[in-house]
């Protein structure tokens, strides 16, 4: 499971035999995986397999029932740039792109009520990085789905330079926009940002990710993409997906 490249990479999240859930029941268990800096981890699983509970746990918002999840080597759960699924509230929200991207800097302000020049520069840089500088004054609700995701990505980048956690980021986008977004995320990963993406889009997962975590009530697989493609579970999952798409 440990390939040579991991020697040079620092561990960021270690999850040891963790079980997640609520008082009245375990949602998912036997979670055993490690996220290293620079990884591109794709979390696969059907609906109800515990993906969203796992997200909350990784963000440090929901303690595990059993086992251990730790953020190591100076990395903290607050340094995860999170890209949540869009809510209906956001689709019709009157806010300019600049305001939304800037809100990613909020955790840096502490008790200071307003943003300083440094944070405004950071927001401008991240807008430029994702090619949305020309949209800065536009209203969020008037943008296309792909543009909205770029805005939220820019906001997440304002919060962190270390790790992005994306929850089904391409949902609702047309194929072209989906492709653009995947390429963009892949580029960010090449710049050294760790990516954790929750998805049920297996074909893109195996195309872009370096590691796969497959869960369904419990951990079915964790390892590199190559191992996953050769594993029994990986093969059968890809076949079912192919049949469904055929």
């Amino acid at each position: 499971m440990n390939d040579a490249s991991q020697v040079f990479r620092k561990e960021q999240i270690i999850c040891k035999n963790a079980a997640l859930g609520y008082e009245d029941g375990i949602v998912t268990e036997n979670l055993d995986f490690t996220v290293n800096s620079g990884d591109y981890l794709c979390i696969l699983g059907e609906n109800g397999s515990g993906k969203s509970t796992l997200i909350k746990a990784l963000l440090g918002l929901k303690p595990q029932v059993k086992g251990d999840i730790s953020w190591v080597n100076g990395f903290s759960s607050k340094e995860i740039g999170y890209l949540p699924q869009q809510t209906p509230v956001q689709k019709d929200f009157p806010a300019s792109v600049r305001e939304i991207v800037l809100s990613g800097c909020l955790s840096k302000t502490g008790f200071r009520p307003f943003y300083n020049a440094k944070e405004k520069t950071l927001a401008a840089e991240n807008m430029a990085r994702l090619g949305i500088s020309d949209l800065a004054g536009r209203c969020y609700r008037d943008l296309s789905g792909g543009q909205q995701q770029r805005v939220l990505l820019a906001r997440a980048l304002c919060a962190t330079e270390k790790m992005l956690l994306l929850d089904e980021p391409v949902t609702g986008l047309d194929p072209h926009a989906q492709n653009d977004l995947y390429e963009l995320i892949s580029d960010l990963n090449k710049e050294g940002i760790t990516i954790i993406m929750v998805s049920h889009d297996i074909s893109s997962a195996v195309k872009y990710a370096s590691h796969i975590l497959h869960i369904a009530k419990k951990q079915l697989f964790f390892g590199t993409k190559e191992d996953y493609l050769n594993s029994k579970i990986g093969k059968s999952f890809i076949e079912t997906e192919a049949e469904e798409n055929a």
Partner: protein
Amino acid sequence: MPEIISKLQLYFSYPFVRNAFIVGVLIAICSSLLGVTLVLKRFSFIGDGLSHVAFGAMAVASVVGLTNNMALVLPITILAAILLLRTGQNTKIKGDAAVAMISVGTLAVGYMLMNLFPTSSNISSDVCSTLFGSTLILTLTSFDVWLCIIMAVIVITMFIVFYNKIFSVTFDESFSKATGINSDAYNLLIAIITAFIIVLAMNLVGSLLISALIIFPALSAMRLFKSFRGVIICSAIISVICAAVGIIISILASTPVGSTIVSADITVFFIFWIISAFTGRSRA
């Protein structure tokens, strides 16, 4: 025209008219600031629900014979606000059902209490003035006015200091939580401020029309403006103008204060709606 001005001059020479004007404008600013957040968080009806709670509490206060009913009304309303905004997270009873339940429940109990233990001979006029504000605003004591000024200063300061946090929590609670913003604390703050504003605004427009003060300026501003800051500022301006115009018209034409203000808000909403339809920015 000159006689209208002289009539206004005459009225504004009375301190109670000036008091009503000050209080009206301040409440208008506060409710519109908060209104934008509440509308966007899909809590438009919380104003309605809480004002009925305040109505019920007021009935209890007068039955018990409290001289200053604020002492009872405010804590109960704040408690209800906290409970209602909390149900958003705890989904045993959905948010809208909880608001509706508390809203009609307290209204019924309040009216029942007022009938069972009448404190004055004319119950229906008592009830009417609590529900619609009517002349209450012209009977403000200087204590009420100062309370209102202090409250308005607190609300506006809080809003400016926490503006960026309120924006973030309103736009995306999950993201805010993930980056370590204590969004529950800010939701609590929003709930408490809402309760304060509603208790204050009951004097102005009465408990049935408070929602209008909260939602109309926000909805009008959202028709036209593309940034959160623009929406907030525009909604505050609309609200102040409507309150001022409403109070002046109600003095000149002897109409009920509350419903005149709300009518002004409705008019502005339709004007903005038409403008947005013509400029193609409408997103209904």
